[in-house]
């Protein structure tokens, strides 16, 4: 198996603290065909499963869905989905989920959409056959083979002939129970065709499936499967046209929200606990509002305004509702979320000063420049911070007898220990720029009554002053675009790039440049690239 770029670099550079996942790139001008990593089965993410069920069988069925959970690896559920075997309890859960879905679908009459025939009797074999072919095409995202159809017709016939349960509808129900547990539903299967020496082209149904789960977090629509059947997805131009249409769907917004919430930990804000004496306003409702605020800025920058995505790091306004307004010190809107300009003296700058981000990257009752800087290094710059060395006391020093000191002073004192300093300067010093925001993201003039020094730096990269200085600095870094390109690659393909694939990452980073940082344009370039349309040519049995 190929090592990822990351693990190779770790071997080489393990003595240093921070390391970039990017290699010294070869000249991207020459792009001979690159051998891609072989494909792996990808288990549907839970949101993809639920969305697909909803598209297939309606909202009642989707509400009954309760699939096995996602397993994250290397920071991505999409990578876990292509690495791990489903557990025994996961298989149990898929079974009970599929029974609940099928029962809800039967009660709602949702199977009617998948057959035109009227059954002449409960065990109407021809009518079952029609349902299985039509429902199977949607559920498994490809036409069924005869042996598969026969196998499921037998299941339907047995159920319809059951002396206690036997109706035609029960036959359909048990087929649905089975189809939703089949590996053909639960996994994205990518075999490919037309192999070259190095790679294989995805077949048109596989392409439809990859596109749809990536861009819309759901199974391909009937129209997209028709396009696949007609060969429309066999050319880059055809893929671009289909993808452009999918980006217009509301589902595209949801899919990007899913990735963004995972990468920038928005979804972890729900479930944080705060010191209830220090922050009595903290709770379910504020956390949920912070999550929505963060995603609304994403929606605005990417979908409404189609701006350089890095506007997320510099926005001087926020989407504010009645829960958030008092935290930010602005008037509460009467209803919902309203785009609100923020007091200039607070220096808010998008993602990194949002209440959710600040709450997440803090302790229950104090800030954490370390966590904040680590987030910037890992999630915006794709650098890896080495773990602390063994058996060191990582506690911060207590306040000295002379009185309280600022968090910055405590951390700088901590950095006097050279074993800690090599890594902590990489984190703390960036986080210092956010010290005006407390553990739930309220602006504060002072820290324990002491003046706040919010100058900061990222060693080797540059210096900045305060939160807006930090946001503007990051928005100018090519490494930030490159990191986003890597992030989307990993999610889209369910794996880290192999070291041989570094030129692909280079090309993707370039695509951000040519698209002026616009996500939509980047996505269209990505899905039409060979890396997205091909898979490695692993020898099959």
């Amino acid at each position: 198996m190929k090592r990822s770029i990351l693990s190779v670099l770790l071997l080489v550079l393990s003595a240093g603290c921070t390391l970039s996942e990017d290699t010294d790139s070869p000249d991207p001008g020459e792009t001979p065909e690159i051998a891609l990593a072989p494909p792996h089965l990808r288990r549907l993410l839970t949101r993809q499963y639920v969305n697909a069920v909803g598209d297939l069988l309606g909202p009642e069925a989707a509400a009954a869905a309760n699939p096995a959970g996602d397993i994250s690896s290397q920071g991505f559920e999409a990578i876990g989905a292509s690495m791990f075997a489903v557990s025994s309890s996961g298989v149990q859960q898929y079974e009970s989920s599929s029974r609940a879905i099928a029962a809800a679908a039967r009660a709602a009459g949702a199977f009617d959409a998948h057959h035109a025939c009227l059954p002449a009797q409960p065990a109407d074999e021809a009518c079952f056959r029609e349902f299985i072919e039509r429902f199977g095409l949607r559920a498994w995202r490809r036409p069924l083979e005869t042996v598969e159809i026969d196998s499921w017709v037998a299941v339907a016939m047995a159920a319809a002939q059951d002396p206690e349960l036997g109706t035609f509808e029960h036959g359909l129900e048990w087929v649905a129970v089975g189809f939703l547990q089949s590996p053909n539903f639960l996994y994205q299967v990518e075999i490919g065709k037309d192999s070259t020496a190095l790679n294989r082209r995805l077949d048109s149904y596989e392409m439809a499936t990859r596109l749809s789960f990536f861009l819309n977090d759901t199974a391909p629509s009937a129209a997209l499967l028709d396009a696949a059947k007609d060969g429309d997805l066999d050319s880059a131009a055809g893929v671009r046209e289909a993808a452009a249409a999918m980006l217009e769907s509301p589902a595209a917004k949801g899919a990007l929200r899913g990735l963004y919430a995972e990468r920038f930990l928005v979804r972890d804000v729900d479930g944080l606990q705060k010191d209830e004496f220090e922050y009595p306003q903290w709770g379910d409702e504020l956390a949920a509002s912070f999550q929505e605020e963060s995603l609304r800025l994403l929606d605005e920058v990417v979908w409404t305004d189609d701006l350089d995505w890095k506007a997320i790091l510099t926005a001087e306004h926020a989407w504010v509702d009645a829960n958030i307004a008092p935290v930010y010190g602005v008037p509460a809107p009467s209803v919902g979320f309203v785009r609100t300009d923020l007091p200039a003296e607070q220096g808010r700058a998008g993602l990194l000063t949002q209440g959710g981000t600040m709450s997440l990257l803090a302790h229950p009752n104090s800030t954490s420049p370390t966590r904040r800087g680590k987030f910037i290094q890992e999630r915006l710059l794709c650098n890896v911070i080495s773990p602390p060395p063994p058996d060191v006391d990582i506690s911060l020093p207590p306040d000295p007898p002379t009185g309280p000191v600022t968090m910055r002073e405590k951390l700088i004192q901590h950095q006097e220990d050279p074993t800690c300093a090599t890594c902590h300067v990489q984190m703390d010093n960036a986080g210092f720029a956010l010290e005006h925001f407390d553990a739930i993201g309220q602006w504060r003039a002072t820290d324990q009554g002491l003046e706040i020094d919010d100058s900061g730096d990222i060693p080797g990269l540059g210096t900045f002053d305060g939160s807006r200085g930090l946001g503007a600095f990051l928005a100018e870094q090519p490494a930030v675009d490159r990191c986003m390109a890597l992030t989307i690659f990993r999610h889209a393909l369910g794996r880290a790039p192999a070291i041989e694939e570094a030129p692909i990452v280079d090309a993707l980073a370039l695509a951000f440049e040519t698209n002026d940082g616009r996500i939509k344009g980047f996505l269209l370039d990505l899905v039409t690239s060979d890396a997205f349309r091909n898979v490695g040519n692993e020898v099959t049995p």
Partner: protein
Amino acid sequence: MKSKFTISRRTMLRGLAGGTLATIGLPVFEAMLDSNGEALAGGTPLPKRFITYMFGNGVQLPRWVPSTTGTSWTLSEQLAPLLPVKSYINVVSGLHNKIPPITHHEGMAGMWSGHPYISNGGLNSNFGGPSIDQVAADFLAPGTPFRSIEIGVSKRVSQNEGPTMEYMSHRASDQPNPPTYNPRVLWNTIFNGNVAGDPTRPHRVSVLDAVKGDIERLKARLGAFDRARLDSHLTSVSELQTQIGSLGSCAPVAEPTEENVDNMNQQEPMPAVAAAMTNLLVHAFTCDLSRVASYMLTGGVGFTVYSHLGHSTEQHEMTHAQPSFEEELNDGIVWNMQQFANLLVALRDKPEGASNILANTIAVLGSDCAEGYTHETHDMPVIIAGGGGGALKNPGTHFRAGGANRNLSDVLLSTLKAVSPTITSVGSDEGLSTTPVTEILT
């Protein structure tokens, strides 16, 4: 004790699924025992059970380690809740977790598997091999419908550092076993829908036969990596077929109402969840639906806030704060031990043969570090509880390793030896052991 159930040949057969199991869904009743009550009629020993039980972020060693060793050991402050079952307790101290440390990951890997974690860079890793509960399951599970049961109580588990920190049970390095956190979901899996005589049972089984056909056909088109994943999937589908209807004549336990939902202040209902989970597990063992379980009271690192004890700060933060929260930390650890004791007492109170289920249990309690303050990997806190079907010292002892270099994996091997003497090693590389701590074995 006279059983309220009677066992006929017909009852036994009704519990069969697929014709492959000898006995399922039945308590081990006197009717099936030999005259001494120590083995099943026919000489088969009573089934052993194996439990791994953890809480995160270690202990406070001065308040944890008993002051005396040997069989005359006395309970320390933090072990005090174990008093009602003290004779079933073996304490092992002074062991060193030798997995290369990066904080906490080595603890999950070393305590529960003995295999070094596989690094993904930074603080992110996968398990390097099967956890000991799954090794035990290879020996104990055959013949029971649920190979193992994975329980979680606190949901404040590290979710961004990979499977090593998120899960304690791993069937293999590429197959984590995520726990169930919602007692109603666990009840539904084990007790609901598995009632004998359910008219949907034949359809569920035949659907799964067709699913297996799909898996086999797909497998033939894939590379080795995915074939292995689908083999695991196939195995789990076959296991599921044996679970359907497996409750047999064992009365299902009452459906719990607890769903492990935070209150409005995002506080977890941990006491109620732990009580409900313990009840379900004990009932599953009593019905012989499963013989193996992992129980993650709180996750590694210790992100849990014990709000039911009046805390407003997570355990992990408490160990890194100055001044530190010594008494609050202690309260949390004592509460953890009370939950473990509650499980042991409930197992002891289930008679089985001449003794009780605890006497036939091997329960391993541990954490992901010795103390949270420095992520210490020396002197790991370990308790081996239960009689192990006669394989563990009873009354128990406190064994303290001499020197500072005795491998933590040695005690893992002891627990597996108690499962089967044929097991001769556990773990790999730095975590490899072929030398069990014999002092706790009979």
